[in-house]
């Protein structure tokens, strides 16, 4: 029982991380048809900025996390304005550009701070464990889950209650028609990129806490699973991404523990394949 609880909490924590990356990825793809392969780089930017704040600048964890998230948000906006926007009419070049950023940022981080993992200072307040049904679950799991839940609620409110949320929901369905109502959809693009970048950078700062270290390849590794989550949850669907993130995190943890290590990662891809084959039409362009 204790093992199951621990695995479940760890799986949910991992799922929370996947959700933070996938939600932005999904909205960006749903609205803009941009496959942002630089999204992992935004996570890495957030992770390193949080690490820099906590380990180099001596901020407490929450301030460092806020700094990392803000830094990642700015990076996402700059990325959209400088690189993505001029290439809207050239989707193929756009993909190449995001791939380039996805490769260049880890290389830059490696160049500055080296290729080895940098230990992340664990804050005292989050170092303990919580006992649930006999299992000692590290507190940081709940920080991840709580943060992801907050982001989920905030995103749902944004989509349901605000003018820009309305534009995003409509744009996921039919972007051309949104412009034909006189809406300058490019502003929504920048905003969605900012939101996606913020969520990914927040994920980076939380990943640093979860893994206890930062390394240049972290973002790219997590991005693969985030893509699985996006496809499973439906492009453009925040609720779908949340459900899929939980499923992927849990399947991965349990399969890795009860079968062979590494098989869980494979199981996630198998799960994706089964879902795609079972309901191929559900997987694109729906928003909840």
């Amino acid at each position, binding site marked *: 029982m204790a093992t199951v609880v621990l695995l479940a909490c760890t799986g949910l924590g991992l799922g929370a991380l996947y959700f933070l990356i996938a939600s932005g990825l999904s909205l960006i793809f749903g609205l803009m048809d941009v496959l942002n392969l630089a999204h992992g780089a935004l996570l890495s930017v957030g992770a390193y900025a949080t690490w820099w704040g906590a380990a180099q600048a001596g901020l407490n964890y929450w301030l460092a996390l806020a700094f990392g998230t803000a830094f990642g948000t700015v990076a996402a906006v700059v990325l959209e304005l400088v690189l993505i926007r001029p290439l809207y009419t050239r989707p193929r070049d756009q993909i190449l550009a995001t791939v380039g950023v996805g490769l260049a940022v880890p290389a830059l981080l490696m160049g500055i701070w080296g290729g080895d993992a940098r230990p992340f200072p664990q804050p005292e307040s989050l170092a303990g464990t919580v006992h649930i049904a006999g299992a000692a679950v590290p507190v940081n799991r709940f920080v991840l889950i709580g943060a992801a839940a907050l982001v989920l609620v905030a995103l749902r409110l944004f989509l349901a209650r605000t*003018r820009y949320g*309305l*534009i995003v*929901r*409509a744009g996921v*369905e*039919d972007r*051309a*028609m*949104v*412009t*034909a*109502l*006189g*809406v*300058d*959809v490019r502003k929504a693009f920048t905003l969605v990129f900012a939101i996606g970048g913020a969520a990914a950078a927040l994920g980076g700062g939380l990943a640093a806490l979860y893994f206890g270290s930062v390394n240049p390849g972290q973002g790219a590794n997590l991005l693969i699973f985030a893509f699985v989550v996006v496809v499973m949850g439906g492009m453009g669907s925040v609720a779908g991404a949340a459900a899929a993130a939980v499923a992927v995190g849990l399947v991965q943890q349990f399969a890795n523990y009860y079968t062979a290590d590494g098989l869980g990662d494979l199981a996630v891809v198998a799960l994706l394949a089964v879902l795609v084959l079972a309901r191929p039409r559900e997987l694109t362009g*729906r*928003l909840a």
Partner: protein
Amino acid sequence: MTSEALLSARGLRVVIDGLHILHGVDLDVAPTGVTALLGRNGAGKTTTVKAVMGLVPRTGDIRFAGRDVGRLPTHAVVRQGIGYAPEDRGVFAGLTVAENLRLAERDADPAYPFVYELFPELRSRGRQLAGTLSGGQQQMLAIGRTLLNANRLIVADEPTKGLAPKIVAEVADVLARVAERVPVLLVEQNLALVRRVAGTCTVLADGRTAHQGDAAELLADEEAARRLLGVGGGHPVAASSIATAAPAVAAASAATATATATKEAP
């Protein structure tokens, strides 16, 4: 045609994926009433409208209310004061009726009273998802969206397409009422409807302008109507027969019968 046209396009060309869709369309929209854009299937009517709206890459001159709009992006064209109801209605299925309308708001004081007076159902069904509306209701929503703002031109692309005869007559009534307030550019296959509401018309053939002139005159000229539109112009019909006339006028001429049979042959 007239020098004071509200919207005029000259030498409009559209190339999509290397295919030349429009080879030089000239279009004038009269400053009052309904201007019909006619032509056989595939003549380029919808593409012309999309080119005006900036929804497809286009070249040529487009002037709207004296301003060059040929290089403006779609949202900027619309903000010049054009309301657009596209061919497929462009209703957002996953949004409610009220949200569809809210998204279309541009003016500080949107004309909800007028829209709800024309289409009371849009108010009573405000919380319903637009995707669950009937085709006719979706068309009302699409037209309603264009009337929320103080537009200077309404562009309606085949608003009666696929609708039941009774609904077609309702749409015709609405168009006639709307045209009293604001000029309309109407793409339409239903010639009885065109005869009822349109003043002037432009006829396209193979991506070019084949004819511009008075709509009633063209439809009264059997020979010209057959040559340009592939149907007999028929005789003037009462408004009530609009309903049964889609897509072509119910002129029981051999030409019409043949055209219909050819079209529906597998």
